[in-house]
């Protein structure tokens, strides 16, 4: 199923509107909906947030397009609310965190698999193993703080085990900058991938930076402080993939195309009929934005938008378990380290280099991610099951 961007017009911008009940729908079911429905909701919240933020930055640097930006941005704001409010209130912030890491693992894995550029693929695989480790650390916290099984959220799609250890992930800022794609040569999918992973990681950073302080437990506050810091590194990494020479309007066009691509992917695979209808509506709205921006691009840049955009959308994102792929990457690349824009085996990282020095100081008074997961192995039903069974067996033996 392909989407022809030269023909699809979507819903015109001036016909896009909402009432408050339109924005506040019945949320998804934490218990009954498929984990990938939740993954899609979280991803699209991130995509909408990035569009909103980008359009604000654009407006701050451009006097002529402020009205046009404000019109599109108002709709993006409401789309973000509608989508994010689909998360249910019985899902604790920590359970939502588990879901955020599932997004990071599974969406980064599909992007890494389908990315045409070998360097970009390497960057995504590198980031993937770090988020994979975060999932393990937060799972330990969920079990040990709330007494809950993280697999209730993951639904057996995603493994819970160490990746590149979080304490190792702390790097000097200079080692988080990557080489960027060339806007004139890069495949459109490369540009879309770079944007969508950036959006996902940025919302993760923002979420952790916001909810980290709602915890009373000092170890939870520490863990969110630590992983939020890595997510900031990831935002630095992924934003540096974009060509800084892209004109603002070209970037806007890419943002709208990314939104179209992601909603199209969601709609394509959604099993919940009610939520599928939302993805259909959001896709039609984004096609409206894309066409609106294409007209501005022709008028202002005096270029054909299809110099930048593909005429039809690539294969949709694969919202599925990537267990085998992730395990393979883990086995081969867990010991890579970043040095400048390149990745090197850990033996080649200088022991007195900027990243090692930075990391050693940050961890000099303990590592929250190591503390929280000390001796932790995931077990169905939480690690308390083993303790409860042992206690019971002991008592039955005694009596």
């Amino acid at each position, binding site marked *: 199923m392909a989407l022809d961007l030269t023909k699809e017009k979507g819903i015109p911008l001036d016909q896009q509107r909402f009432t408050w009940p339109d924005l506040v729908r019945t949320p998804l079911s934490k218990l*009954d909906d498929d984990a990938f429905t939740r993954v899609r909701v979280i991803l699209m919240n991130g995509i909408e947030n990035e569009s909103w933020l980008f359009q604000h930055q654009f407006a701050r640097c451009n006097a002529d397009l402020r009205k046009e930006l404000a019109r599109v941005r108002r709709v993006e704001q409401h789309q973000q609310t509608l989508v994010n409010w689909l998360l*249910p209130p019985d899902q604790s912030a920590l359970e939502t965190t588990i879901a955020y890491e599932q997004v990071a693992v599974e969406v980064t894995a599909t992007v890494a698999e389908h990315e045409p550029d070998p360097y970009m693929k390497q960057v995504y695989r590198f980031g993937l193993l770090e988020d994979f480790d975060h999932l393990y650390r937060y799972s330990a916290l969920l079990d040990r703080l709330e007494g809950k099984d993280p697999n209730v959220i993951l639904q*057996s799609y995603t493994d819970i085990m160490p990746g590149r250890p979080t304490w190792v992930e702390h790097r000097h800022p200079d080692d988080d900058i990557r080489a960027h794609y060339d806007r004139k040569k890069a495949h459109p999918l490369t540009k879309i991938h770079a944007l969508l992973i950036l959006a996902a990681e940025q919302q993760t950073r923002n979420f952790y930076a916001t909810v980290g302080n709602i915890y009373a437990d000092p*170890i939870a506050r520490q863990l969110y402080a630590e992983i939020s810091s890595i997510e900031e590194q990831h935002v630095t990494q992924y934003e540096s993939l974009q060509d800084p020479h892209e004109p603002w309007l070209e970037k806007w066009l890419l943002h709208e195309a990314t939104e179209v691509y992601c909603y199209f992917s969601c709609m394509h695979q959604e099993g919940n009929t009610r939520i599928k209808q939302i993805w259909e509506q959001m896709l039609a709205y984004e096609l409206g934005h894309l066409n609106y921006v294409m007209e501005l691009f022709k008028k202002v840049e005096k270029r054909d938008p299809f110099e930048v955009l593909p005429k039809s959308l690539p294969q949709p994102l694969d919202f599925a378990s990537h267990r085998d792929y992730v395990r393979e990457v883990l086995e081969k690349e867990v010991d890579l380290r970043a040095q400048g824009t390149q990745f090197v085996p850990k033996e080649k990282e200088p022991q007195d280099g900027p990243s090692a020095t930075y990391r050693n100081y940050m961890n000099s008074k303990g590592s929250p991610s190591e*503390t929280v997961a000390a*001796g932790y*192995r995931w077990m169905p039903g939480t690690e308390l099951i083993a303790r409860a069974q042992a206690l019971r067996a002991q008592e039955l033996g005694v009596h």
Partner: protein
Amino acid sequence: MKTSGDMGKNRTGVRMSPKEAKAMEEAAANIHPPPGDESKIAEVRESYHARAIPVGSVPPPGSVKGMAKAAASAVTGKKASVLLDKMGERMAFERTGVRLYEALITKLASAGEVDSIGLTEEALRKIQDDELRHMQIVAEAIEEMGADPTAETPCADVAGVQAKGILQVLTDPRTTLAQGLSAILTAELVDNASWEMLVDLARDFGNDEAANAFEDARRQEEEHVRLVRGWLEALTRQESLGAPAHAPPPA
């Protein structure tokens, strides 16, 4: 009426995907976790405990009368601020309680009254009025001690944290009437025990007038527990057996 015990497509257990779960479990069994065990978490928590400062303080009396009463208590070796803190807690709890019952009444309106067990809006409004009355009784006692009933004391603040989950359950349109009653029962059980302790504490301070008023409130709260528990039991039985709900036994 909406019920919670119906079978559906719950996906949270490992038996929904046994092959995948087994793959996860095998992989998890073979990892090398960081050294140590969860006692390392306790060490960090303890280090923060050692340097923690309390959530806040009880405000000083804002009146001459209050200062005089505090001084009189101090002479007898008692800290009036402890009584004020606990009265502040009860007042905050009752105030939130009024809002909790408002949410339960909305839930009842949607589910429909259950006349056979006396679970009606009128019955809930009566309890809600009791909570409102108790709030005022404590406010008057605080005033009588020369203190400020609008101040949030440390125990009042912590009671607010405790009530957060109860409020979430009651205001969620997806929860059932029985789930709402279960949440309210949590509140009422704590409320009951807390009134008992407050009566004793007021007597310790020789404040018999307040203690007598608190004792009346405690008796009403005891009745709330009996009613709420009875309704919850009846609804749960009705749901599980499909049998009509019976009225809770008389006090």
